[in-house]
């Protein structure tokens, strides 16, 4: 358990680096490998400017909470058979709680500077991220059905014969919608979008901004690891050792999420809200019903 935690803590920074590289490739920018480190270092050395009458405590802590949620979410993912940092029998619910708290943290990040553009970003984000969370609940419950358990370890073990992505083909794409929402990306980036000049982070500078980007990438890593575990069989796979499979699958989901974030367009928020409730949510019902019929003896 302690070993697994140490592995996570050591693996996270390089994975965040890789996530930043994917982002640079997606944006078509050069210096893919060193760019993120150099820009990060430059940002850390800049000052963090205070705004007029901010909520100092929440402004200081919001990036930290975001990172903490990414870490806790990551800690329920089993790295290999019987190797998991947080041994909890309701890992799927804990992951769900991390999603819910992410909404709170992004809201606080936009609320705390006391400035208009971050504030609008925060409120818009809540509107979209709350229903997006429902999608992930339905598809994760779909993943829990064959496992007959809420433990992430059991969810992996239940995929020995057939991966959930085959049993539940709609699950992964719908889960990806949530991934885009909690990592503030592309079509679901209602918090930090360009039409708000950076939204919740428009007033952030220096280390606080660097940290926010770091936490965002860490959340992408956590989401990708969770998606790989719940739908792609996690550490299961032939020849290679378990952790290697998990790593490969995590990287694949990460690349797919970055690509999806750059491919799909962001709708105006009200339109997205209707789309979520009227199209995506019924789809997630259908996905659950499908897997329900499939696993019946």
């Amino acid at each position, binding site marked *: *358990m302690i070993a697994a*935690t140490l592995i996570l803590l050591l693996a996270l920074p390089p994975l965040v680096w890789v996530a930043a590289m994917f982002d640079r490739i997606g944006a078509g920018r050069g210096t893919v490998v060193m760019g993120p480190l150099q820009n990060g270092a430059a940002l*850390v*050395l*800049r*000052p*963090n*400017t*205070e*705004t007029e009458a901010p909520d100092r405590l929440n402004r200081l*802590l919001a*990036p*930290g909470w975001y*990172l903490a949620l990414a*870490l*806790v979410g990551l*800690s329920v993912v089993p790295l290999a058979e019987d190797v998991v*940092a*947080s*041994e*909890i*029998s309701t890992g799927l619910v*804990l992951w769900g709680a991390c999603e819910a708290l992410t909404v709170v943290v992004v809201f606080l990040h936009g609320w705390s*500077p*006391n*400035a*208009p*553009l971050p*504030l609008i970003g925060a*409120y818009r984000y809540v*509107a979209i991220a*709350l*229903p997006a969370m*429902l999608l992930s*609940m339905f598809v994760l*419950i779909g993943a*829990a*059905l*064959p496992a*007959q*358990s809420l433990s992430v370890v059991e969810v992996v073990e239940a995929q020995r014969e057939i991966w959930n992505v085959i049993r539940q083909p709609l699950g992964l794409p719908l889960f990806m919608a949530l991934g885009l929402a909690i990592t503030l990306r592309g079509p679901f980036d209602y918090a930090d979008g360009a039409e708000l*000049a950076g939204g919740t982070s428009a007033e952030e500078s220096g*280390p*606080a901004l660097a*940290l926010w980007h770091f936490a965002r990438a860490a959340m992408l890593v956590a989401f990708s690891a969770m998606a790989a575990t719940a739908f792609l069989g996690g550490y299961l796979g032939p020849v290679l050792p378990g952790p290697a499979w998990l790593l490969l699958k995590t990287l694949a989901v990460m690349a797919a999420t970055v690509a999806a974030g750059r491919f799909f367009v962001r709708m105006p*928020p*009200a339109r997205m*809200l*209707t789309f*979520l*409730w*009227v199209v995506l*949510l019924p789809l997630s*019902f259908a996905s659950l*019903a499908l897997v*329900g*019929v499939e*696993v*019946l*003896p």
Partner: protein
Amino acid sequence: MTGIAMPLILVLLAIAFAVAMQRIGARTDATWPQRAPFLGGGLPETHAWQRFHVRYYPMTLLFIAFEMEMMFMYPWAVVYVETGPVALAEMGMFLGILSVGILYGWREGVFRWQ
């Protein structure tokens, strides 16, 4: 117990890291022009914090009701395979009832900006 000890330790580590990072570098006192909210050179009359007109408040109420229902689904998922068709029928009914709620909300336009 161990199940929650590790997440708590991770939370403490992340917070400590975040606070330490933000203490790096010289912290100069910002002047008033530096603090002003970014509006592209324009200025606001008032503080941004206000009785903010949330445009999707009926949706949040619908959402809370839905969220309640999700909490029933987790234990249901655990015993689904053991219980068999009864569980399918029961949850089908439950979801059917709630779908009526979504349809009604859609008809009344709660998924739009008010």
